[in-house]
């Protein structure tokens, strides 16, 4: 079972958002390096934002995979996907708290 099985709305949205996120993250990474090289304030915040975007993309992929499985009404895999997302949420929230 692959993502490429259908040209679904979820798959198109996932692809579009991933590409947009990648472009924004790349621009922010380049700006962040530039600001740091010229000792401008706010450089760390820019780089942290870029890293946060890069971190969000795989989570978006996992959510898209769960939505695809919901569309197929394949509940065991929906449950497995939700379990993965819960584990990721736990690891993030535990450190943020």
């Amino acid at each position, binding site marked *: *079972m*692959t*993502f*490429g099985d259908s040209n679904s709305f979820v798959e198109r949205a*996932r*692809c579009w958002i*991933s*590409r947009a*996120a*990648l472009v924004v*993250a*790349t621009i922010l*990474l*380049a700006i*962040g*390096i530039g600001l*740091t*090289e010229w000792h401008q304030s706010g*450089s*760390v915040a820019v*780089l*942290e934002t*870029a*890293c946060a*975007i*890069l*971190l969000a*993309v*795989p*989570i*978006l*992929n*996992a959510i898209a*995979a769960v939505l*695809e*499985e919901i569309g197929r009404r*394949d509940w065991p*895999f929906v449950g*497995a*996907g939700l*379990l*993965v997302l819960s*584990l*990721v949420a*736990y*690891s*993030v929230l535990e*450190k*943020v708290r």
Partner: protein
Amino acid sequence: MLTLALTMLAGVAAGGLGALLGIGGGVILVPLINAGLGRPFREAAAVSLVAVLAASASVAASTETRRLLNVRLAIVLLIFSVTGATFGAKVLHLMSEQTYERIFGATAALIAVGMLQRLDKRNIRSAETVADPGVLGGRFYDEDTRTEVVYHPKRLPLAMFSAFSAGMLASFLGIGGGILVVPSLNSWCGVPMRVAAATSAFMIGITAIPGAIAHYHLGYLGDFRFAAAASIGVLVGYRIGVSLGLKTPVRGLKLLMAGMLSLVAMRYLL
């Protein structure tokens, strides 16, 4: 500025090879930053995890490998890899840098031997002989044989164990875990190399998250510029690697992987 440029070049090399092998490139990037540029192992691992996230984002944005990705197998294995990564992130601060370097070398050596032992194993059967790939199997058009082929994953407990180990090592060593998942899926579980690589590429970003957060939280990331430079390099390298990937023979991919791992093992074990 020169160090930043070299970090970016290391990222290009890691991203390119990572795309060809279905790994995040961490196993290449960590030694290049640690041994090549003289940064501490923990900082190299932290930088590498950010670069792995960039590689994963690059894969997500591309469509080249999507037809090979087995999303159900990935979801099942992610339960174990993310659990391992979360556990690894919890105990990250307990061991010394030297211990992590030895683990890194030993892991690379073991996988290189495993890859060389099964260099010519294909793990696929023609679609006519196997009608049903099962719940976790799949079928795809193989560029090498120019036929539709079917595969059916075997020994799933082994794949689950390797996913858990890969997750733990991802947090310890700054790798995405693909370096373990790809060979074990291919060699032990009968998943074709290209499918294993695409499935692993989907998994690495999610597996890297607990380790990346922990490294950042513990202050190992240090200078953010290195992570940014490595990430930009990986993004460029990944595009190059993906465009070459489907044209590279499977045997060549395996040899490349084994050779690369042997070099890494020698650096950290001798």
